[in-house]
């Protein structure tokens, strides 16, 4: 039985995907995280039907600049052409499918396939082939060949792409969540820029284990990251308190979510904006008033840190609070690209404000390296936990066990802030961190996975 032959949600052994997701109990079969067939379906139904994050405009700021990335499980070239537009091209020659480009990035007017020498421009047009007349004949037309080009959306310096011609626009795709994305990426006159190339490493876990952690799991911090208290980085039960003063806003239609934390009770010596957006330098903070709505400013002026964002399926932003003994506040965006059911490529960028001095940029990037990424003193433990789960869900009995995301209490925006109701859209849980918003992420996953073959 091939995947193409399957209808809707039936797997090859007759199991219905819906049986693996117990909506009533909020439980997911371990098989969801370890099954090759589900992984193959995700390639089409998740990564073929969503806007996928690939990188930042600041990585390719000049015409001719390019980087190579993965879109789902495909190699792509992300190139700025001479009109200034960003192109996302399948890194596959239109002739005999050799990879055209085999470097991580650089500057190129043209890309030459090594096999037969076909040459493409940064918009993917075939501009030259060796011995064109002899090879294609008098009637041949090279304009029928080109590198496949994906739809591209840029937003606040971020680059997204999709192969799906029928997918709604990026604006529609983010929907109400724009309110929060704007707080993170639309609040400054100049967007945050990369400090340098991203960390890239392959970890031993399913991509969904990494993604669902960033869809609202504040609960894990008090145990998994407990060493941060012991070494004085997050003193005084700080991480316990983070779980207790969290706000999750989850979008039922789109699966996007944000986790915020009220930090005012713990670090009262800082002003509200210093707590809310520590990665934005003081000189740039007046720009917030100009670019955000009063209700968005009200969130920040309550000292609420809009720090952990998840744009379905796998784009994450993370604000990094300056803890004692750490160099500076920071900001990172990251993505978890599937490689195999039990392997995920983590890409993690340090972003900095463009007006910082070189030394300040480096300190902010150091905060990323110290806390997140392969060597991050927070993320090391996350990676270890996800690898442990991956081992579990690969067992014959373990894959039959259901991972649980218990519901806590009905969402409510009422009175969750000191000065009144939560001002933003979505379903809101204020108070102790729960698994509710994570479940919204998985419900979106289920919707896409079962929406036709």
């Amino acid at each position, binding site marked *: 039985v091939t995947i193409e032959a399957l209808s809707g949600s039936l797997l090859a052994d007759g199991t219905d995907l819906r049986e693996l997701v117990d909506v009533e109990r909020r439980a997911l079969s371990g098989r969801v995280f370890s099954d090759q067939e589900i992984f193959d379906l995700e390639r089409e139904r998740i990564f073929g039907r969503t806007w996928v994050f690939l990188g930042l405009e600041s990585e390719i700021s000049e015409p001719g600049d390019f980087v190579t990335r993965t879109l789902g499980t495909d190699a792509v070239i992300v190139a700025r052409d001479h009109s200034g537009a960003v192109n996302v091209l399948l890194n596959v020659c239109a002739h005999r499918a050799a990879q055209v480009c085999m470097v991580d990035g650089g500057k190129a007017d043209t*890309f030459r396939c090594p096999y037969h020498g076909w040459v493409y421009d940064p918009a993917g047009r075939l501009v030259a082939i060796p011995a064109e007349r002899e090879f294609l004949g008098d009637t041949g037309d090279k304009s029928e060949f080109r590198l496949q080009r994906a739809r591209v959306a840029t937003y606040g310096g971020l680059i997204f792409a999709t192969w799906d011609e029928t997918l709604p626009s990026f604006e529609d795709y983010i929907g109400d969540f724009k309110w929060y994305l704007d707080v993170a990426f639309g609040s400054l006159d100049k967007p945050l820029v990369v400090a340098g190339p991203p*960390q890239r490493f392959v*970890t031993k876990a399913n991509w969904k284990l990494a993604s669902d952690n960033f869809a609202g799991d504040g609960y894990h911090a008090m145990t998994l990251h407990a*060493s941060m208290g012991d070494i004085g980085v997050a003193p005084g039960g700080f991480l316990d308190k983070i779980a207790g003063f969290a706000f999750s806003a989850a979008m039922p239609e789109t699966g996007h979510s944000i986790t915020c934390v009220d930090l005012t009770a713990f670090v009262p010596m800082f002003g509200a904006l210093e707590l809310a957006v520590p990665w934005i330098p003081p000189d740039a903070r007046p720009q917030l008033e100009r670019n955000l709505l009063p209700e968005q400013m009200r969130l920040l002026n309550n000292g609420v840190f809009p720090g952990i964002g998840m744009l379905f399926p796998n784009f994450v932003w993370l604000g990094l609070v300056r803890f004692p003994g750490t160099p500076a506040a920071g900001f990172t965006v990251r993505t978890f690209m599937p490689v195999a059911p039990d392997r995920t490529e983590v890409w993690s960028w340090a972003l900095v404000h463009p007006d910082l001095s070189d030394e300040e940029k*480096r300190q902010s990037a*150091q905060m990323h390296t110290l806390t997140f990424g392969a060597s991050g003193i927070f993320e090391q433990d996350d*990676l*270890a936990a996800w690898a442990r789960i991956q081992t579990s869900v690969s067992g014959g009995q373990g894959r039959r066990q259901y991972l649980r995301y218990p519901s806590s209490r009905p969402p409510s925006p009422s009175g969750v802030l000191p000065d009144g109701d939560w001002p933003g859209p979505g379903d809101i849980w204020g108070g102790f961190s729960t698994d509710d918003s994570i479940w919204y992420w998985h419900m979106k996953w289920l919707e896409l996975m079962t929406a036709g073959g």
Partner: protein
Amino acid sequence: MEFLELEAELLDGARFKEWLDLLARDISYRMPVRTDRGDGMGLPLTEEEAGFSGSGFFDEDWGSLDLRIRRSTDSRFNWAEQPRSRTRRFVTNVRVQRLPAGELRATSNLLLVRSRWRDPGLDLISAQRNDRLRTTAEGGLLLADREILVDQTNLAATDLAIFL
């Protein structure tokens, strides 16, 4: 050479505090992200080594290395190293050059083999290390600067809860 062997022994033996004693207080310890760059037509562009931006797997000073080490020594919750991985460092091709003011430039190849619990697979990390060593008043050596040039651009390692 002896310094590098001692250092490998201390790290392989998880004697991290003793390793920290071999580091100068003003150490810079960096492991940049490696990338292959090209012009699209097959010509390689040089990696931009100058002006390290802090975009790496490590960009540490003595204090941040101490923080990392205290996860093992001061906490029961260093989950990334539970159980502690066994590491074996193979240091070869050591070249030493004298610098002014009693300092030494040492370059070496490092092959780090890491084994965890009962996983039959091994993490293998190979790198060139460019070190600057300083002679102390007592005649010993301190590591004052280390650049770790790892060979993989896409690192195959569950995590980097270790030192190179």
